[in-house]
């Protein structure tokens, strides 16, 4: 028995980069066409080296800039880096425009992002619930109440039923927990760990993978104190310690600004822990997409922050060439001041070729459960070919949008596969930028270009 499909559907919504599972590199960092990535070999190798550097630790404050035309896979490479680093290395993904808010000044937002990207690992005895899963049920709520599921856990001696909220259900399905598994739930953080499958679990009809770890059913009480390894980010420590400052905590929550004294104290404490070998620093990666959206103040701050001992690897991405630096009238490469550019390494992604576009479209189509027609003789798909042709004159992102639309059109014809005619239809129905602006110049009343001509 596993969780009903209603939840997994909700969890596995298809995002633009959801098919990326890693950087697709082998052990010697040679790029392969896997993990949902295709092409951009040089950039991927470079990213792989950065990941190695971060995993080695101790080398903080490195900056990398990924530059390339729109749709060439900059964000996909960053996602791949996050996946390769694994769940225990902090990876923060932000967009350049996220640093502007009324609640918080820019440098505070940047500091928080940087501190979110550095982890501290330590051993600690904490209260956990440890047991074998007897039953998991997800209930639909009609009234929007809190309780949405039931979990039954047992040890060799006892059994307890729990009410679950959506947060816990999601955590369980993320860990792929099913009946018969032995799990621990950290009572402080709510973190779910799947220890293995119980020996006693009678699942005769289920096939077990080679990775299945068999463990005995826990003994004694369900709640116990146990030593666990925690990784928390510096930002989380900041929040906890500014919260326990008494009733002021009500006003300064997660979103507010954190006082610099609190951070100073924490930095001293952490240095002490590391000295005493009680904790280990896990430098992570901060990814800033659309970095040209930052202004001169942010760049100046970032410059200084990269010099600090507690700095993560900062990966930035931009699609701008020579452009003005925000907040100034100066022009610089990629819209980034030259003193910061000096400090960082630049990785380039190239505009994908027609064959590469085809492969990328294929990956996206299978991610979206769309099948293209297939010609036995030429071993080619005419529909895919046509779509790749469209991408030559439009853009890759536009073509990715057409995949799902064309499959909906194909469904209307009761066809399981997408053919050329479906793509032609959606290509006519939905305009790309070029065709749209061309139409504007013809039909619209007050078109800027036309007006210019009239003036002359």
């Amino acid at each position: 028995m596993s969780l009903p499909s209603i939840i997994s559907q909700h969890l596995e919504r298809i995002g633009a980069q959801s098919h990326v599972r890693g950087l697709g590199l082998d052990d010697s960092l040679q790029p392969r066409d896997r993990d949902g990535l295709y092409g951009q070999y040089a950039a991927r190798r470079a990213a792989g080296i950065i990941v190695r550097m971060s995993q080695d630790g101790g080398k903080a404050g490195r900056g990398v800039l990924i530059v390339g035309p729109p749709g060439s896979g900059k964000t996909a490479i960053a996602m791949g880096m996050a996946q390769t680093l694994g769940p225990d290395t902090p990876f923060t993904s932000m967009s350049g425009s996220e640093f502007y808010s009324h609640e918080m000044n820019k440098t505070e937002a940047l500091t928080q992002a940087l501190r979110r990207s550095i982890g501290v690992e330590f051993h600690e005895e904490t209260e956990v619930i440890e047991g074998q899963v007897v039953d998991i049920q997800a209930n639909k709520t009609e009234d929007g109440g809190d309780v949405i599921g039931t979990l039954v856990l047992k040890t060799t001696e006892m059994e307890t039923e729990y009410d679950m909220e959506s947060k816990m259900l999601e955590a369980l399905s993320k860990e792929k927990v099913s009946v018969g598994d032995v799990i621990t739930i950290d009572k402080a953080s709510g973190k779910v760990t799947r220890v293995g499958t119980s020996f006693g679990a009678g699942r005769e009809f289920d096939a077990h993978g080679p990775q299945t770890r068999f463990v005995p059913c826990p003994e004694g009480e369900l709640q116990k104190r146990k030593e666990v390894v925690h990784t928390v980010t510096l930002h989380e420590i900041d929040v906890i310690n500014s919260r326990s400052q008494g009733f002021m905590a009500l006003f300064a929550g997660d979103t507010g600004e954190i006082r610099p004294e609190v951070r100073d104290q924490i930095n001293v404490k952490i240095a002490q822990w590391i000295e005493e070998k009680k904790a280990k620093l896990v430098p992570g990666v901060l990814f800033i997409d659309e970095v040209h959206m930052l202004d001169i103040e942010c760049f100046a701050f970032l410059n200084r922050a990269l010099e600090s001992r507690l700095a993560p690897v900062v990966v930035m991405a931009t699609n701008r060439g020579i452009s003005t630096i925000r907040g100034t009238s100066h022009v610089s490469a990629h819209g980034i001041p030259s003193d910061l550019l000096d400090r960082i390494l630049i990785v380039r992604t190239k505009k994908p070729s027609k064959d590469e576009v085809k492969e990328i479209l294929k990956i996206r189509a299978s991610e979206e459960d769309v099948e293209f027609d297939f010609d036995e003789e030429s071993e080619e798909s005419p529909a895919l070919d046509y779509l790749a042709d469209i991408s030559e004159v439009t853009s890759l992102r536009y073509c990715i949008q057409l995949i799902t639309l064309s499959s909906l059109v194909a469904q209307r014809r009761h066809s399981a596969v997408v053919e050329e005619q479906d793509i032609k239809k959606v290509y006519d129905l939905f305009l790309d930028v070029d065709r749209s602006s061309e139409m504007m110049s013809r039909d619209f009343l007050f078109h800027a270009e036309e007006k210019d001509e009239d003036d002359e």
Partner: protein
Amino acid sequence: MGLVPGGNKTVAIRGDKKFIKTVYDNGTEVEEILRQSDGILIVRRVRHQSFIGDYSEWNYEVGSEDSVPELKPRSSKISVPSIGIRAKSYTPICVRHDLADAFEWHISPLIYPSKTYDVSVEGKFIVVKTTNRKYYKKINLSDIAWVGEKSLDESLLKWNYVGNTLKIRYKKSVSIIRREREQMFLMQKAEKEATSDKKTPGAPSQQCPQQ
């Protein structure tokens, strides 16, 4: 009564109740509440400070949140964010109630027939078992360690099952009662000294920030 040893203690008196807060060097906090009239311990709750400075939830060793109205959180806003899981409301709860001459635990609601239960002494612990393996509890009685007793005495243990409640009673040994009397005496002495210093009889000996 039988207070935790050591630590940094702060006492406050309100009405018939005496609040004693003990803070240890490692950040662990213990709050104990005594009834002034008979010196019985109504509540003892413990919380630990985690490595990174976070506090765990209060863990009730004696009594429960419902024992004293002051313990109810005043505003729901202050409560710790939920982790998304909690035991069903009909899960049995074990609550310790102290008497003058014995420790008593009430476990309820337990809905299985009376022959299901087995209560025994295993070293330092009182262990509650069920033959249908639905409920299990290992009760730690730290009071005995404070008087230097290594293990519990089976002959002092009595239990019965009435009205969906399992009642377990462990008679206080002579040394435990002696320790409690000594503590009571010392505390009354300290209180007298504190009040005579201030020359304001009846005022609280010290301010307790929490209560």
